[in-house]
């Protein structure tokens, strides 16, 4: 068996990992099958006055059931929630992939080269780590017209530093191990040693950090959208749904409550999967 699948099995043997993976699987399925599990169009409005602010589990005069109620434009909250999941999960995952890519390159180069390069890269990492992230997010998000793609880039560009540090540490310690010396004495090129022998072994903590990072990125995406500089309405994202529900908190609390609960559930699931993976991947920290 490939060691990767073995670790996933280990992770799933953990109660937390099972629960987290199950929740994520359900949410991803709902997001992928959004047209099937919902009423179809997240922006659909009919008779606004007659269908707005319907409470959860009510049926409107067209005979359509609204499991989570409707918002101020009479749009179905459940439909917007599952379509919003596409945006929120997609943006979070892509942003973390971008962070991991940058972090891997910076960390690997800093860990496996000598001279002034690692010094400069590490100083750059420490500098970026000390920047107040939200300030940077606000500034970057104000640079171009707000969109989902912009949020991915902005979150990716401000989230790579911890990955770079992790990778740097791993690469440095792996570089002194006998199997790397062996590969070098066989005359393999340094880039090949780095790519084929060191990096695959350094991926363990990166996977854990990525699992935890996705939860964080989803939360930040929602935060930016909440402040109005992220994903723009009418495209539904959990953040702009919460923002739009804020104005109607008194007479229609479900509009802001539903996307918030979904967000918490997904972030909890990411955290649990990250914790379980961490324990499965590092036998010493298994508790």
């Amino acid at each position, binding site marked *: 068996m490939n060691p990767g699948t073995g670790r996933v099995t280990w992770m799933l043997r953990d109660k937390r990992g099972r629960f987290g993976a199950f929740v994520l699987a359900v949410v991803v399925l709902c997001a992928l099958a959004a047209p099937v599990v919902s009423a179809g169009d997240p922006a659909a409005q009919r008779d606004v006055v007659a269908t707005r602010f319907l409470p959860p589990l009510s049926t409107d005069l067209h005979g359509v059931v609204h499991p989570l109620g409707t918002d101020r434009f009479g749009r179905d909250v459940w439909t917007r929630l599952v379509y919003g999941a596409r945006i929120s999960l997609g943006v979070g995952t892509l942003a973390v992939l971008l962070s991991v890519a940058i972090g891997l390159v910076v960390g690997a180069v800093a860990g496996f080269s000598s001279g002034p390069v690692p010094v400069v890269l590490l100083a750059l990492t420490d500098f970026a780590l*000390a*920047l107040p992230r939200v300030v940077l997010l606000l500034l970057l998000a*104000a640079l171009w017209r707000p969109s989902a793609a912009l949020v991915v880039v902005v979150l990716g560009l401000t989230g790579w530093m911890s990955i770079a540090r992790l990778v740097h540490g791993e690469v440095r310690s792996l570089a002194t191990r006998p199997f790397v010396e062996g590969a070098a004495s066989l005359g393999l090129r340094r880039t090949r040693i780095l790519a084929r022998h060191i990096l695959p072994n350094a991926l363990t903590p990166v996977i854990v950090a990525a699992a935890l990072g996705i939860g964080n990125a989803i939360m930040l995406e929602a935060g930016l959208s909440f402040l109005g500089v992220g994903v723009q309405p009418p495209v539904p994202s959990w953040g702009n749904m919460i923002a739009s*529900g804020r104005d109607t*908190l008194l007479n229609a609390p479900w509009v*802001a*409550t539903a996307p918030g609960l979904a967000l918490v559930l997904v972030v909890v699931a990411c955290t649990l999967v990250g914790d379980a993976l961490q324990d499965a991947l590092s036998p010493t920290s298994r*508790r």
Partner: protein
Amino acid sequence: MLAALARRLAAGLAVVAGVATLTFFLLRLAPGDPVERLLGPAATAEQLAAQRQALGLDRPLPAQYAAWLARVAAGEWGRSIASGRPVRAVLGEAWPATAALVGLSLLLSYLLGIAVGAAQAARGGTRLDTALSVSTVTLFALPGYWLGLMLVLVFTYRLRILPSFGAHGYDSDALAGLARLRDLLRHVALPLATLTLVGIGGTARFVRGAMLDVRAAPFVTTALAKGLAAPRIWLHHVLRNALVPVVTLLGLSLPALFSGAVFVEAVFAWPGVGRILVEAVQARDYPVVMAATTVSAILVVLGNLLGDLLLAWVDPRIRHGTRET
């Protein structure tokens, strides 16, 4: 120790200078023009040009940057383009509100988080540990702005016992002494609870992990073998040593907490730096954005420095230079 401190201070200054420079050029690259917003859609091209010249915005960027640096070095932050008020006055009113909110929530979330994490570690594997783990993971996952809205829903709209925005009631100027303090406490309650609850989750999770790591160390086994009472071991051996990484986290969590404060201030209309920053970025109010980011960078750097000093206080090995810091 002193040399290390001087090095950290120099690095901190470099970070602040870097933030200011980055902010300056990012902001000017961004589309949107404060003068157009100031004069409105009816302004003619000549009026716009005259106003730009008056504000010095028609000069080349490097010259503007040098002028800004020179002014700041002389302690002059300029005037807000949007309101015309001195930036110093705008921020002077705002930063104590943010510092109070962030400082109090840091204190509370660490005290409560350490207590919860320690209780979990000491009762590891029991139902209490599991129940608290579920709660802390959930708190950790709560977005501050949403938790804030939910607290408003419950305490303002349903129970009608706490105000949902601002730092003072409309009548606060007429109040004196205790009544005024009560007014302030009622207003700070919800934003403080929001930031603190989110903070407890992260801290408790971290403390639990750190204590379980120390629990496995040989010297704890020795202490047990010597027959020391369990509470004494948990308090003096395990918790004391687990505090070292926790204190490091304290310094590092300040930027995150400030970030959280930006969202929470937006929800509760708390008159702090975060709210001013969000408004100024949207209005492209250059002098205010520059000052607010510089001040927040300074706060973050000072927080990290404070974390290092606390660390040296908690861990004698660092203070006496027998360990690499």
